[in-house]
């Protein structure tokens, strides 16, 4: 049969940003998908080389705009490692709490957009965005900003948590926990959702490891890998949580895993509040000139909501000589070429949606 080649994007409501897909179709069955990226490229890695160390966090945050704090934190800890600065213990707990709140916000956004990708316009999105706003309110209270919080400083934080933050956080978390249950009943009692999600876009574990995908996409395929457990940072080794895995590796598993992860994050935050010591959490004030470093190469690895994030920093005198970012989104996107083979056209977007991509991080 003849192959039809169609173009999707770069401006398309379902591609979550500016992504162009060239799709070869045999009837309605997909033969080949070719993602064309680069419509958002602005040269972040090059720009960081022209800035002082602590002028860069705002650039890092604009990579993944659904989880800016994870990126900010990864960069700052790379600089801390290069300069040999210890993080205060209370600051570690505050960072863990804020990072897990950020993970919840990111996963809530995923739940909102997956409804749109399946053609169920805006109901689920309205619900999830409303709850995400509640989590963002907490972050705004703690950092002063709604979306881009440049609140990490070398060795600590910009400011301590506000008074009564714990009570309000626990209140909101109880609310979110209740809502997760509601999402489950709202989504999973719908037969259409099962039809569209189950046994579609299967990524077997061997293939997932070959492609190098990480994060919820890998764990939904049944591979137990999480940076928080495998090479713990901060206080993750003192806190009790499980790495949830699901074995199926299809769209439904990827959706379900994010709900399970949100529950684990809630558990983590509650425990972190109980164990958090009193004391000082403030970091060094930002100086225009950071202490000089010579030819030091460091690499930090973090579990961002989308997958494993690495910052490879070659530190020079006052500025980074080279900063290379291992973006989880970029590597997860390449899995679509494998997963899309044999799917129907409509299922391509459901599969793309469950990868939960942010194009700003893919293009950099």
């Amino acid at each position, binding site marked *: 049969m003849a192959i039809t080649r169609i173009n999707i994007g*770069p*401006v398309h*409501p379902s591609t979550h*940003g*500016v992504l162009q897909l060239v799709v070869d179709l045999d009837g309605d069955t997909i033969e080949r998908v070719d993602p064309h990226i*680069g*419509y*958002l*490229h*602005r*040269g972040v890695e*090059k*720009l960081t080389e*022209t800035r002082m160390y602590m002028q860069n966090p*705002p*650039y890092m945050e*604009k990579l993944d*705009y*659904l989880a800016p704090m994870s990126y900010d934190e990864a960069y700052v800890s790379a600089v801390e490692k290069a300069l040999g600065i210890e993080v205060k213990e209370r600051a570690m707990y505050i960072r863990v709490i804020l990072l897990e709140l950020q993970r919840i916000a990111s996963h809530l*956004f995923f739940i909102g957009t997956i409804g749109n990708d399946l053609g169920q316009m*805006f109901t689920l*999105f*309205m619900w999830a*965005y*409303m709850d995400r*706003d509640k989590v963002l309110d907490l972050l705004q209270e703690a950092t002063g900003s*709604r*979306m*881009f919080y440049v609140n990490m400083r070398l060795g600590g934080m910009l400011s301590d948590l506000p008074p009564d933050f714990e009570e309000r956080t626990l209140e909101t978390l109880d609310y979110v926990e209740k809502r997760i249950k509601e999402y489950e009943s709202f989504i999973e009692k719908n037969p259409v959702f099962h039809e569209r999600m189950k046994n579609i876009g299967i990524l077997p574990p061997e293939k997932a490891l070959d492609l190098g995908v990480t994060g919820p996409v890998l764990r939904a395929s049944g591979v137990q890998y999480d940076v928080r457990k495998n090479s713990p940072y901060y206080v993750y080794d003192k806190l009790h949580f499980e790495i949830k895995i699901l074995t199926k590796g299809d769209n439904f598993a990827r959706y379900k895993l994010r709900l399970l992860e949100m529950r684990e994050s809630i558990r983590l935050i509650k425990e972190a509040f109980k164990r958090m010591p009193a004391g000082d959490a403030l970091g060094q004030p930002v100086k225009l000139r950071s202490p000089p470093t010579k*030819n030091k190469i460091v690499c930090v690895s973090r579990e961002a909501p989308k997958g494993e994030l690495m910052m490879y920093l070659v530190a*020079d*005198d006052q500025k980074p*000589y080279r900063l290379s970012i291992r973006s989880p989104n970029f590597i997860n996107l390449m899995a679509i070429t494998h997963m899309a083979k044999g799917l129907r056209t409509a299922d391509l977007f459901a599969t793309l949606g469950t990868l939960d991509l942010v*194009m*700003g991080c893919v293009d950099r």
Partner: protein
Amino acid sequence: MAEEYPEEEFKIAKKEMDRLVYESLKGREVKPNVMFAKMSDLSRALGISKGMVKWSRVNSLWPMQFGLACCAIELMGFGSARIDAERKGYLLFRSTPRQSDVMLVAGWVTKSMVPEVKRLYEQMTEPRYVIAFGECATCGGPWFESYNIIRGIDQVLPVDVYVAGCPPKPENLFEAMIKLQEKISGKIED
């Protein structure tokens, strides 16, 4: 450690690149007034007063779902439950330019994206309005030194309202939309 390159060479190359991009776009000027762009044409065709046309235009604006980058997340916040833009006449975000009349440029515009933005603008029905949402669309924002960015969407499209902030809150967009309504109804001069 780093080998120094002469600065002049870079500047010349950058200038040349900018020139090439704008030369290539020169022939594709946006032509106004397709059919009912003028209020008097429409009122004559439908047999209603100009005030009626103006009123309906102000109170039913359809924004286009066109998110580029970070600001698009706050753009979605504008349509979500907390702000509820529908009470002011902003209906659902449309997925196609042919059904919409407000273009919200939310995010940085790269040089490879400029032809696409222009094409989308040309596909929109007249009369059409552009809101530059956020620092990047207004002036280049934090990327003004980048080699792949145009510094402000107003180099390519006529902009009606600018919104400052990185990113602006959904409330700021709401205010900008009210400003746009005032501009259409003639309360604010250009």
